């Protein structure tokens, strides 16, 4: 098990390394000159050259990349600007501070948004899936299936905006979406995120309902379950002991992937609801040509996806020992 984990982690590290190399290379192609932006409106050539030197962008690409990677582990000094302690993911010349601090500052909003929504859609999805499976073909099953299908086809910016229009501004049922740290005001934290959670849940629940339902139906028709039932095991314990367990593997898989993509790609959700998380941060970075920040956000987002993949693999291995052999 340990060896399996080490192997997967190493593979993930390599993938992250390649992603950062590719990103670095591509960002090099972006036409904006960060030195020009850092220099200002009255920018004599000497000052511009100095800015280039301070930013380290007068060196060859390879050297720049290596010093960027090294800085992650040991930190780096930017002449005339300040020190960027490890883990130094870069130094933003727009914000004049290490990008790591900015990211750490925004991460909680994205995590709260994502994890909160994930809890809702996981519980709700599995529950409706179980009900649908137990009542196959009945009205409830059909309603669950149809609504989950529509939910999966819906766009956040459409439904999110529509719900805001009716429930926030017309009926005043929900609070205006915003992020307040839970440490400051737990009630405000909850009510501010409730609508975004619900909208994400509408969209993501569908997958879990479908997946749970189909796996449950399959498991329930297995011989051993029938036997257990025939021997007088109660419905509830059948569901809990066999059927739910069977659904674990596929659910864990898609859950891991969804969580990773959500953390990495909350741009549309955060834009729709005006939440200040990593998604908005990355959009701002794009608009400000803040390449060091953008680069770091890409890396963090990729890391979220890759790490979730490793976690899924690990969980997989726990649930089903056969996986480890392959």
């Amino acid at each position, binding site marked *: 098990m340990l060896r399996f984990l080490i192997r997967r982690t190493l593979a993930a590290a390599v*993938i992250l390394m*390649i*992603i950062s190399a*590719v*990103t670095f290379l*591509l*960002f090099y*192609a*972006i*036409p904006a000159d960060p030195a020009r932006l850092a220099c200002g409106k009255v920018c004599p050539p000497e000052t511009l050259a100095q800015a280039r030197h301070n930013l380290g962008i007068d060196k060859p690409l390879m050297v720049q990349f290596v010093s960027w990677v090294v800085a992650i582990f040991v930190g780096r000094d930017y002449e005339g600007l300040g020190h960027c302690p490890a883990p130094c993911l870069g130094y933003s010349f727009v914000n004049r501070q290490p990008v790591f601090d900015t990211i750490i500052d925004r991460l909680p909003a994205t995590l709260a948004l994502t994890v909160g929504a994930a809890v809702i859609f996981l519980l709700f999805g599995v529950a409706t899936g179980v009900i*649908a499976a137990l009542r196959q*073909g009945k009205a409830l*099953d*059909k309603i669950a*299936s*149809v609504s989950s*299908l*529509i939910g*999966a*086809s*819906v*766009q956040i*910016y*459409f*439904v999110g*905006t*529509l719900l*805001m*229009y009716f429930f926030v*501004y017309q009926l005043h049922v929900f609070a205006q979406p915003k992020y307040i740290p839970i440490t400051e005001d737990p009630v405000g934290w909850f009510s501010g995120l409730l609508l975004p959670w619900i909208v994400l849940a509408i969209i993501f629940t569908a997958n879990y309902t*479908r*997946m749970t*339902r*189909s*796996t449950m*139906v*399959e498991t329930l028709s297995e011989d051993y379950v029938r036997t257990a039932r025939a021997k007088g095991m109660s419905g509830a314990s059948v569901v809990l002991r066999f059927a739910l367990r069977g659904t674990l593997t596929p659910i864990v898989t898609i859950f891991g992937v969804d969580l990773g993509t959500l953390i*990495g*790609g909350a*741009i*549309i959700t955060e*834009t*729709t609801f005006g939440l200040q998380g990593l*998604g908005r941060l*990355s*959009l701002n970075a*794009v608009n400000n040509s803040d390449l060091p920040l*953008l680069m770091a*956000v*890409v890396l963090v*987002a*990729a890391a979220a*996806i*890759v790490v979730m*993949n490793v976690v899924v693999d690990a969980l997989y291995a726990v649930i089903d020992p056969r996986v480890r052999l392959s």
Partner: protein
Amino acid sequence: MTTPTSTAPAVDATSVTETQEAVGRSPGQLMWLRFRRDRTGVISAIIVIFFFLVAILAPVIAAVYGKNPYTLYGQDIPGLLNDYGYPVAPNGGISSEYWFGLEPSLGRDVFTQLVYGIRTSLGIAVVATIIMTVLGIVIGIVAGYAGGKTDYFVGRVIDLTLSFPQTLFIIAFMPVVDSILVASNEEPPVWLRAVSLTIMLTAFGWAGLARLLRGQVLSLRTREFVEAAKVTGASPARIVFKELLPNLWTPILIQSTLLLPAMVTAEAGLSFLGVGMGELVPDWGRMFLRATQVYRNDITYLIFPGVALLVFVVAFNLLGDSIRDAFDPKIKR
């Protein structure tokens, strides 16, 4: 993933057909028969065909309707928009003259914007889907069939592609792709963004299909009929085209019917984030962008593209499911 709405009748019908008329039916015919009996599938297909027809016939529709998506009706004709730029008539300015109302501020006709918008969105989505499917097929088959180092390498590239935060990446690189395609001192043509969007969507979209096909080929490769072909000295080309491909059409078709609506929504999403088509090209995504700005005063302008996109995606997803069911009823779990 199944469409439970159609489950019960479809299965029954199929089994009846197969027992009664067990002779002389090709798989294609069987599929068609099963599909025809799937009412949800047929309705979805009609809706999807309707959308495509609208896209193709957009100029004809506009001509009959007597408006175009480019004229600023609300600005040229006084009394249509109020001082703030919102339609004066109720419900976003809906009238017998402007069926779906007027766009706030610029005062263009929403109906023709929507009709022409399908063209843009579907055009980009179809082209991207085709390129992606071809790429996915080639890469998936090559990796699966060649095996060994090639397979390992392709597998890692697929992993890598899937690990990229796609939306973020596309937003960051759209300007780069633009500048590569057209030198900065030239007038950027209207098609520029469409091409850039297609390229970016394709760059990240092929991997899923390739991974799936690779898996399929891997399992097919060891099957008896392929082994037999190899033993009889069939060329790799023959094996790929005559033995493997025919067995892959089903997953390919199913996957690409699911890819297409995903591309339509991806394109709309990018436009919503501000990296889509320019103001001069009618586009659904940009309608969303504008609609989410003005919705407090003109919710109608959000409803039309929203409902249109929703209907299209639901219909296409249902169609995808139905096609899957029709091809292989056993997939139903």
